[in-house]
């Protein structure tokens, strides 16, 4: 079937197209070269509308045990937001931690066609994929968490051959069906199990004697040499600690030119100035980042209201559990593999700390030069639920709106902030990069995030409304694989997206050592640990899409 979108203003930064009026043709789910002579089966007149590729969220906690703990924990979050089933959609509920089906519908209704779960514990990978399987509409993918798992820490402390570390990293990506690898509080989740309460970049793990710096460098190098497109996704040490800016600056320097991604950097950009010993370090951090092209970031913007933080960082989540609101934190030590912490949180605009977090996120957005290295996230649900993105986009695109909002926050935070002096306003091109082209490029999704020939027919059409929040809130049309799935911000057809994975080469010989490790120490057999393709697609849950990796080098 040939579909034509005619007359739209196309923003497709990957292909250097900026607001140009052009027709887009989709056939059999893919964008094809213009065929002005052909008679399309469907024509959509989108004259005057803004046309972009479907948006991609490269860091959103949508599936896995910690989300289901959060869901279980917060019935009050759900009761106020019930959604009944319709003839085509399933029932659901949820504000901060929506049910799975509703997560898929709401993302699609906001113009998103792909979402990536950034913290999949390998020990919990099967469940993460089951939950993502129950998240319709969007493509999915997940980052395997490594760096506090005992197998890797043993490899590192025993100074195993680096090729074996690479084999293990690649094996884990295969076994857990991951597209990338994330490290969370490197070594710190494990150190917390040994009763260490903090682990700075060069501090030694009490049992293994290794440091976060060593963990980061080894994992980053392993991924680079394995040819995995997305660089090591780093949730650094000391999340949320006043003064953690120094750790963050040191982490940026520690990368030694290796590609790395620093996630939710807002939570890692805190200074200790001022009466309350808490200040924005966004200027210092962005200054270094602007000179460090090997590092990409996402922000993890805080927006005000009730949410729930959910993280693999059991050490830091335990530390902030005193701030839980409502007061019911959950912390877990998990399977000699990782951990998690789920802490409900209410960010208040009149709170000095919360207001400053809001400011720091926005300062980071506005002072970081290169939109190709910056992704728009709230670290859903940690900074705010994902459906606040349109509000965040307006804050970035509309200086006067931003100034109005700024007037409403805690006065002391206002006094400390340089935000009013930052005059930058994001353009539609910038937004298309932050929410489409950049994440696709970074994740290695060659046929996503753009509208060139051969790209997937994942397309979002917006009304060009000067109120950018309203514009991005309610796209007029969303297409997934060429099918119209959302009209006027409502799901009109339910589809099942694919699951993106990457499968770097590894020496199967690593399984000898792994099998021994599982048999001796684990409560699960190595072969049962692995998640099969069949499990992901079972029950018509979509498909597995293997994204290419580069050649393995040493």
């Amino acid at each position, binding site marked *: 079937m040939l579909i034509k979108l005619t007359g739209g203003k196309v923003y497709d930064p990957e292909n250097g197209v900026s607001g140009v009026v052009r027709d887009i043709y989709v056939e059999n789910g893919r964008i094809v070269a213009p065929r002005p002579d052909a008679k399309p089966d469907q024509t959509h007149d989108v004259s005057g509308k803004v046309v972009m590729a479907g948006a991609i969220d490269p860091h959103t906690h949508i599936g896995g*045990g910690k989300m*289901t*703990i959060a*869901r*279980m*924990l917060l*019935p009050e979050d*759900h009761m106020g937001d*019930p*959604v*009944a*089933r319709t003839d085509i959609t*399933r*029932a*659901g*509920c949820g504000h901060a931690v*929506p*049910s*799975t089906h509703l997560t898929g519908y709401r993302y699609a209704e906001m113009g998103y066609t792909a979402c990536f779960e950034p913290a999949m*514990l390998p*020990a*919990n990978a*099967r*469940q993460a994929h*089951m*939950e993502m399987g*129950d998240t319709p509409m969007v493509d999915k993918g997940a980052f395997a968490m490594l760096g506090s798992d005992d197998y890797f820490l043993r490899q590192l402390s025993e100074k195993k051959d680096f090729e074996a570390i690479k084999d293990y990293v690649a094996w884990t990506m295969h076994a857990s069906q991951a597209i990338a690898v994330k490290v969370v509080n490197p070594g710190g989740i494990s150190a*917390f*199990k*040994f*009763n260490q309460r903090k682990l700075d970049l060069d501090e030694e793990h009490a*049992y293994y004697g290794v440091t976060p710096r060593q963990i980061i460098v080894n994992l980053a190098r392993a991924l680079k040499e394995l040819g995995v497109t997305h660089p090591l996704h780093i949730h650094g040490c000391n999340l949320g600690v006043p003064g953690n800016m120094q750790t963050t600056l040191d982490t940026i320097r520690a990368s030694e030119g290796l590609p790395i991604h620093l996630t939710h950097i807002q939570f890692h950009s805190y200074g200790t100035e001022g009466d309350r010993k808490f200040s924005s370090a966004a200027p210092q951090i962005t200054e270094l980042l602007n000179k460090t092209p090997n590092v990409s970031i996402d922000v993890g913007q805080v927006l005000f209201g009730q949410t729930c933080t959910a993280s693999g960082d059991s050490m830091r989540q*335990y530390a902030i*559990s005193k701030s*839980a609101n409502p*007061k*019911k*934190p*959950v*912390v*877990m*030590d*998990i*399977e*000699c*593999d990782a951990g998690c912490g789920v802490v409900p949180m209410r960010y208040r605009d009149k709170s000095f700390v919360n207001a400053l977090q809001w400011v720091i996120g926005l300062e980071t957005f506005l002072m970081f030069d290169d939109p190709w290295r910056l992704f728009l996230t709230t670290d859903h649900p940690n900074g705010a639920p994902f459906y606040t993105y349109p509000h965040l986009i307006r804050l970035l695109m509309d200086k006067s709106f931003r100034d109005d909002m700024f007037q409403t926050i805690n006065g002391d935070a206002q006094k400390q902030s340089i935000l009013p002096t930052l005059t930058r306003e994001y353009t539609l091109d910038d937004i298309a990069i932050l929410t489409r082209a950049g994440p696709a490029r970074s994740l290695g999704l060659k046929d996503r995030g753009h509208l060139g020939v051969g790209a997937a027919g994942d397309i979002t059409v917006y009304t060009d409304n000067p109120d950018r929040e309203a514009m991005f809130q309610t796209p007029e049309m969303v297409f997934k694989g060429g099918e119209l799935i959302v009209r006027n911000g409502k799901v009109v057809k339910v589809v099942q997206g694919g699951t993106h994975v990457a499968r770097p080469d590894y020496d199967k010989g690593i399984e000898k050592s792994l099998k021994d490790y599982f*048999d*001796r*120490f684990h*409560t*699960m*057999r190595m*072969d*049962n640990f692995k998640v*099969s393709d*069949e*499990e992901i*697609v*079972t*029950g018509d849950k979509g498909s597995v899409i293997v994204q290419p990796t580069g050649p393995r080098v040493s």
Partner: protein
Amino acid sequence: MPPAGGSAARVGAPSPFLTRVMTRRRESCFRTPSRAILDLAFLGNSHIMSSPPVLFHDVACPFCGMICDDLEVERAADGLKVRRSGCGRAASAFERKLPPSSPMIAGKDVPFAEAVAEAARLIGSASQPLYGGLATDVEGMRAVMALAERTGGVVDHAASGAQYRNFKVLQSVGWTMSTLTEVRNRADLVIIAGTDVQALHPRFFERIVAPAESMFGVTPKDRTVVVIGEGLEKAAKAARVGKVVSLACKPTEVGEVVGVLRARLRGFSLDKVKFGGVTLAEIDTVAELCRAAQYGVVVWAPAAFDFPHAELTVDQLAGLVKDLNPTTRFAGLTLGGAEGATTAASVATWQSGYPLRVSYASGAAEFDPARNDIARMLKAGEGDLLVWVASYSPDFVPPRTDLPTIVLGTPGLKPPKGTQVFVPVGTPGVDHAGRLIRVDSVVSLPLKNLGRAALPSVADVVSAIEAAL
């Protein structure tokens, strides 16, 4: 319909018979769809096993919440035999001989399609169907959720009464927990509260409390087990851990004893010296053990506290962990989770937003753990149809009720009098492949199809019913 023998390489793959009937579906291993299979009355498993023996390795056992997956099970002409690593409970469950079983309407054998049509008719005309039991796997639970939502039903697992002692604490104050592998390698102090762990999980001591080897060099003799309860120290002593301390008290007294322990850890003096048969001196000994532990774990199964407001006991246990964590490391480990209880709660939570006890009467999920307790509803005469799912144990029968009842049960389960429709279903991990979530709510295990019997899965039957609505 003999499933021909397979080589080791084919272990876990569906039998050729099943493969044949599955070809219409793109995906295979978790759904054994199949009009063909469904149209056959099941004639007992002696009938279908005439092939050479096949040995299955790394078999996950679905019969308790620990889901040990190191079993070796052989399928031979006379049925399944657990060859390695199974406990007595696993052996009797895997090796149970299935009696012949047929779909039935009002006690009379009927073809599968007729049973499904009648079930669909009953469900379609019910205004508040109750979906209970729910002893199934992930796919079965997914199918039940879809049907319940579509038919305005109530969803609740038979073990919710116990699970809710935990959920109430979680939803009120949160907690800090651990998982099986973590405890196996790390715990030097295991406090077992009120729970006969050996009866619930016969391999818990062998695999978790006192494994011969652990990652951080914690040997069995380095480990201390404290049992708070009566008659529970025998299994701990048999495990040959370094030290066993017993605080003998009734399950109803565990909360008080732990409360005193918490008070002593906080440095309070008390004027009472005996608490339900336990002396203050004994409690002080345990307080010292807690302070000295590197990684202490408080273990309980909520089913052990079967008395009103037992969530307050669980609250004390979670509170003990909370009190100790500022200085040392402690975590809880909750046990139980048989009959797919953890799976049912998890799937219900991610799909509906709530851990069971959900009503879809309005089309949206309404959560009320008191009102939507199916055991209570049946007693109070609420609801107008019971749909009972029991795919593991033949003893998992529905509670007494006057409501018309549909039972999806493993062969051998005796449907109570008045059952309108009975459909025999396979057991996940025995008769078909599947997935099950372990009691720690973190790890899930793939279940193999051991080819015991050609029976439809719960997911197959429920999906067929939904399609027939």
